């Protein structure tokens, strides 16, 4: 557990009476003999242990013929993990209960794939052994592939019927150009038949190797003990050469607009346009990243400028006159995440003939944030929200394991995470202006018309 990080928060605290425990100098961060990197984080708040496994398998690894292969592999593992744990019902009831109803989270991001779950501390080793066997060792099976195909087909259908998701992919193409990273993670009906067992097996054998993976554990034990469990459970995975060159450099693209048409945006005679405007943020290791988090918080929430700028709200309301809109906000801002190319994006909807005015109004708001000092109160609010967002990401063990793991992965170590709250608290108006100037200079737009 990164106590050292949190001790820095003490310096920011308005309440010195809140004594903090002494900082732990470092988390155990070891590399097993087979190359697997393991981190352990003490957390005795419950009897459960959060598990986060990240594999450095980005979209670039999918050869042109295999788009969607990573997603399909993850679904194949999901099927096998559930099957395996269910088969051991008498021994792994608790993990089984989790898998049946509580969410084994297997996700495919453009820059890596991950598994997040949790189990009772007493079952940690058994669960890790199952994960090791299924994800790293056993040959892929036709049965599991068949199940994964079905899920992929369903997911494809859903994504096609979701205009927001389709707009998001247009935005990503604007942001990242015509690269694998901008493609949908799901296989399409055209590419799915090409995702055969041998092709997937080759991808798995090359990338799901210990030296290309990171395991983070957060649970009720000494960190060294947690790591020791991983050593026992995972050392048996054979060592294989790790692939090199995980992620290519993604230099910022020039401003770009991608436009598409989506029949799901029309209901009867009424159509709606869906627009995402996004901006690249500095990388996690960039000194400007903390100020970028504060900049995002200037925009977000009920007290952020997107919700409080009267002219912008008026434009939005006019643009949706005659529409029934549920929810208090007509605009959403996506928070930057710990990933290789952080960005923020703003999603807004309007009547098709008003989308240009909405876009102009949105850009005006953003430029005002860039050009006009925020005022200490607004700046302070944004700093507090940025620090709070970090804290709330770890309210439970899976969240803690994931946060630590992602920072270890993308910031080349978890130490920057420890320093982040302090850095956020020091972000000045000048920092925000600099970051906004840097970020808002290139705009990436995805637009779907009905």
């Amino acid at each position, binding site marked *: 557990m990164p106590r050292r990080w949190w001790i820095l*928060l*003490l310096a*920011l*605290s*308005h*309440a010195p*009476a*809140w*004594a*903090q425990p002494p900082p732990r100098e470092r988390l155990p961060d070891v590399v097993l003999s087979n190359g697997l990197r393991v981190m352990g*984080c*003490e*957390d*005795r*708040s*419950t*009897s*459960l242990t959060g598990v986060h496994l990240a594999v450095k398998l980005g979209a670039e690894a999918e050869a042109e013929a295999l788009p969607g292969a990573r997603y399909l592999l993850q679904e194949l593992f999901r099927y096998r993990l559930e099957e*395996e744990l*269910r*088969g*051991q019902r*008498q*021994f*792994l*009831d*608790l993990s089984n*209960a*989790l898998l*049946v109803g509580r969410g084994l989270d297997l996700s495919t991001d453009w820059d890596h794939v991950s598994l997040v779950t*949790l189990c*009772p*501390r*007493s*079952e940690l080793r*058994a669960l890790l*052994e*199952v994960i090791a066997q299924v994800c790293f060792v*056993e040959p892929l099976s036709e049965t599991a592939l068949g199940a994964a195909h079905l899920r992929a087909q369903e997911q494809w259908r859903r994504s096609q019927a979701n205009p927001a998701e389709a707009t998001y992919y247009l935005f990503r193409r604007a942001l990242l150009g015509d690269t694998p990273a901008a493609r949908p993670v799901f296989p399409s009906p055209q590419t799915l038949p090409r995702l055969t067992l041998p092709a997937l097996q080759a991808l798995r054998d090359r990338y799901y190797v210990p030296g290309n993976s990171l395991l983070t554990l957060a649970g009720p034990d000494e960190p060294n003990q947690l790591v020791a469990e991983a050593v026992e459970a995972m050392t048996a995975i054979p060592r294989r050469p790790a692939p090199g060159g995980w992620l290519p450099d993604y230099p910022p693209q020039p401003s770009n607009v991608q436009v598409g048409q989506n029949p799901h945006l029309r209901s009867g005679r009424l159509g709606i346009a869906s627009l995402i405007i996004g901006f690249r943020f500095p990388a996690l290791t960039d000194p400007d990243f903390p100020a970028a988090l504060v900049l995002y*918080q200037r925009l*977000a*929430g*009920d*007290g952020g400028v997107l919700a409080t700028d009267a002219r912008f709200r008026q434009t939005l309301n006019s643009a949706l006159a005659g529409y029934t809109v549920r929810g208090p906000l007509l605009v959403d801002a996506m928070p930057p995440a710990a990933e290789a190319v952080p960005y923020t994006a703003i999603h807004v909807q309007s009547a098709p003939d008003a989308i240009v005015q909405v876009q102009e109004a949105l850009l005006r708001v953003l430029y005002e944030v860039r050009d006009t000092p925020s005022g200490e109160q607004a700046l302070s*609010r944004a700093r*507090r*929200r*940025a*620090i*709070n*967002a*970090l*804290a*709330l990401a*770890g*309210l*439970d063990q*899976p*969240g*803690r394991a994931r946060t630590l793991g992602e920072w270890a992965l993308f910031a080349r170590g978890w130490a920057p995470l420890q320093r982040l709250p302090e850095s956020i608290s020091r972000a000045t108006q000048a920092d925000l202006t600099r970051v906004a100037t840097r970020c808002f200079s290139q705009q990436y737009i995805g637009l779907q018309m009905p």
Partner: protein
Amino acid sequence: MRTRLICAVLLLLGSLASVASAQQVLDLARIQDQTLGNGMKVIIKSEPYWRAVALGVVIRSGAKDDPAGKAGLAHLVEHLLFEPSLPGKSLSLAVEDLGGAVNAYTSADFTLINLAVASQFAPDLMSQLAGTVFGARFVPEQVEAEKQMVLREMADRDSALQTRLSTLGFDLAFTVHPYRHPIPGTRESVTDLTLADAQQFYQDHYVPGNMALIAVGDVDPTAFFALARQHFGAVPARPRLPENLPAEPPQTEPRSRIRTMDIANAVIQFAWQAPGISQPAEVCAMDLIYTAMTRGETSLLSKALNAQRLALHSEAGFLTQKYPGLFTITAITPPDKQLEARQAILDLVRQFHEIPTSAEELAYLKKLLYADYAFDNQSYSDQVGTLAFYEALSTYRFATNYLAIVNAVTSEQLQEAARKYLREDNYNLTVLSPESANQGGLHA
């Protein structure tokens, strides 16, 4: 492969069998409590592993405390707490300012306000939290605005079959106890609520001795108790309105109620009076019966109804309450399967009367219940919710003892609980039936 995995796991078998019960989900040793001079209780579970804290204030009054004819008053007052006319910055604005989230809900037994923030900001929120529960000022315009909000929510909910079923079921099962009233009230009762009603309820129930402040997370107990004294302890003690609720008389015969509606399938609900918090062993026995009926791959309800094509969906419900509540079994059935489904439910219940649960099955049910409890208390906010829940009903220590009580339940106790509560001569049957369906024989 399977063999190898099982071998690996077998090595752990010896420990796994007993570990589940030995592991603490909510460890009493990690909890401290104090009662302030004005009677307010402060409960702290200190977890220094992540610099976040969840805070809750629970008021031991809920819909059961609504005065006669004023159903929905407790819920309306909870809504009013977050109105921005409060002195100073309101709690919801203060929490939004931090990017956190504040949630509140009203149950039959209590009202809970729950929020989570980075621990460094928690001291700043204490004054807002205290102001919300002790210093709220209501004005007529806000009362009217919130009434409209409640009525809109009610209109949304009323269209849901589940709400209609629940409202009818509680009204049928309780003849005098206030659990019979819907928590949000009725359209008529909410419309008639006044500013004076809200002020009186707030005056009567939002008193220190009727509340507990709960913190789970990165708090130093000494410092937190001092903050609690500063912000909550300064409020003078006031007597709480005595709780004189009419006891529900024992039910001696089955009751039924059928409503025809424009629906495709029938919805059947059996409801039995069930133990309240004052009978902990029976509560836990009923929790195990509930688990047997609903959880795991071989849930009994699923086998008895879904697998036999008697139901499209089936579920059971049992919420521990301060006073005896309800155990329910609900099934959505094709119209022509209503009678068969009903009989299958009664047959299933009879199984619990007649066939003792084997030691192996009982151990499995306890593990499932343990798993549910562990996962239900996964986050700091979850733990505040659980401690608040039991503190409102009885004492938070029930939460820390819960698994031990579950562990001690025997097969005989489980059978006794089924025979005592899930009887064939005192159920309440509520049916929502398609207009075209034949109603003959459906009454109890």
